């Protein structure tokens, strides 16, 4: 696989060059992102306060707070994940463990990759036509969550399937030798071992879900009232940012603050995801590695 050249040349200097280049690159990327983050924090930090997080929007969003929008966002996220996780988990397990000999598996995988490439606005239009009109949910948090689930499914399945495939075969063989059922193998060995991949997939999905604007504008809607049930329409954080920057004069200031809140929410959910999956699975995973990697 690699030529003998690698063994013959004393390429220490090459490693140094690459190292310098990569540090430079990292600094550049970091620099640009910090610039963006800095802008958001500077412009939005002033408006951030407890009252901002606990009041309803006033004056088309230029005063008051975003509590109803936060609630709507969380509701949509919960619906999205509670639909996408079972389907995504099931699909990934099926693709990784059960279906290698089937040609239909390749079609399923390709169709998920295709789904990943559907423009967000097309998913929004589809979500409106299917969930809001055909299924009769109307402009609602439920429709929004279901539409988002369609968007994050490829990310979840991709991450999880890769994680499951990376689990060494020795684990499965050992389990089979001990007479463990497939379900047991999955629950006690494979899923714990793939837990980091699950976290990665979850984090990417939540990130993508929170960042979505067009799809949710057409499905969960524009209403700023505090939603009373999943059938109510509600505005999510990204739609609010969009409205404040593009549609409402003088809304820039609170748009930045809302963006800051969104980033904070993302951080919190990421930390929670790492904690939850770590607590649920890590004890098992570490124990299994010690037993099976002999």
């Amino acid at each position, binding site marked *: 696989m690699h030529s003998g050249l690698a063994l013959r040349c004393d390429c220490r200097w090459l490693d140094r060059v690459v190292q310098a280049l990569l540090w430079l690159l990292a600094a550049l990327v970091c620099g640009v992102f910090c610039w963006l983050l800095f802008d958001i924090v500077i412009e939005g930090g002033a408006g951030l306060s407890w009252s901002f997080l606990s009041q309803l929007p006033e*004056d088309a969003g230029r005063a008051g707070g975003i509590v109803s929008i936060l609630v709507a966002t969380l509701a949509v996220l919960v619906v999205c994940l509670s639909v996408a996780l079972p389907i995504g988990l099931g699909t990934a397990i099926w693709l990784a463990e059960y279906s290698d000999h089937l040609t239909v598996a390749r079609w399923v995988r390709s169709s998920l990759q295709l789904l990943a490439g559907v423009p967000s606005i097309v998913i929004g239009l589809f979500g409106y036509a299917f969930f809001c009109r055909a299924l009769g949910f109307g402009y609602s948090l439920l429709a929004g969550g279901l539409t988002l689930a369609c968007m994050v499914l490829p990310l979840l399945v991709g991450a999880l399937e890769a994680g499951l495939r990376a689990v060494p075969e020795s684990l499965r063989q050992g389990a089979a030798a001990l007479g463990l059922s497939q379900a047991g193998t999955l629950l006690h060995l494979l899923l714990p071992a793939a837990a980091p991949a699950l976290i990665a997939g979850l984090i990417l999905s939540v990130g993508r879900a929170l960042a979505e604007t067009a799809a949710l504008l057409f499905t969960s809607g524009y209403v700023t009232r505090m939603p009373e*049930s999943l059938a109510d329409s509600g505005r999510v954080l990204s739609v609010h940012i969009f409205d404040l920057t593009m*549609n409402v004069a003088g809304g820039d200031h609170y748009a930045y603050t809302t963006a800051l809140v969104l980033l904070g929410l993302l951080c919190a959910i990421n930390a929670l995801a790492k904690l939850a999956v770590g607590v649920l699975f890590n004890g098992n995973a570490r124990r299994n590695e010690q037993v099976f990697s002999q």
Partner: protein
Amino acid sequence: MICNDKLFANRFVLFVRLLTMVLLGVFLASCSSERNKANHLQITGSSTMAPLLTEMAKAFEQRHPHARIDVQTGGSSRGVVDTRTGLADIGMASRALKPQERDLKAHTIARDGIAIIVHRNNPITGLSRAQVQAIYRGEQRHWQHVGGKDTAINVVSKAEGRSTLELFLDYFELRSSDIKAQTIIGDNEQGIKTVAGNPNAIGYVSIGTAQYSVEQGVAIKLLATSGVIPSSEAVRNGTFPLSRPLNLVTVKEPQGLAAQFIAFTRLATNEPLIEQQYFVPLAH
């Protein structure tokens, strides 16, 4: 922890049953929320009017606690179509009704004017009608020929289908395919930010938002067109030609909650709400 497969299987099936019941319960509960037709209004349409209608709906709901008024965006044409098909009770249209829409009823609640804006550092103060036409047709490419600096003009126009564009084309007697622009924008704020970021840009946006932005120190200024200085007062008393009505559209004479709401929007006490969104209240 789960000790053996049989136990796991039983618990799994139980979990699935519980989950189904919970989801069903949630769904049924959500169906019986305040979703009564008699006290619920669905309003869709122009994104320009949506912030204003949201505030009016909120004010109305404070007076009538059981009413639920949902405002959604989707564009003026969508508002008209949804009203016609019954998907919405009231449509928002930021333009006059087209000839093929004359069978619907329009209730004007405010007016909005269009001003031509340039960057604050641009030395010119006004343009004649012919100059504007030449600039937007691409015949006039440099600012120096109309009294400005020696730089290329960066023309900003609106996307097709927008009522602002249609009004602009109508007034300056241009066709959509005549316009040679360098940037096309969607909403007003995008236009303002684009012009404020480019010293050579020229564009047109709603008067109210332009005036407000100038007050806030955004780097734009309004131009006089054919000698007329754009202002909300001029729009209010009808002397400014580049203006459009903001309409609420219904299929026939509104009844019940819809009638109450439309009457509410026209109360003089709501004029501050209209002005807060930088539109022009109707002259009474």
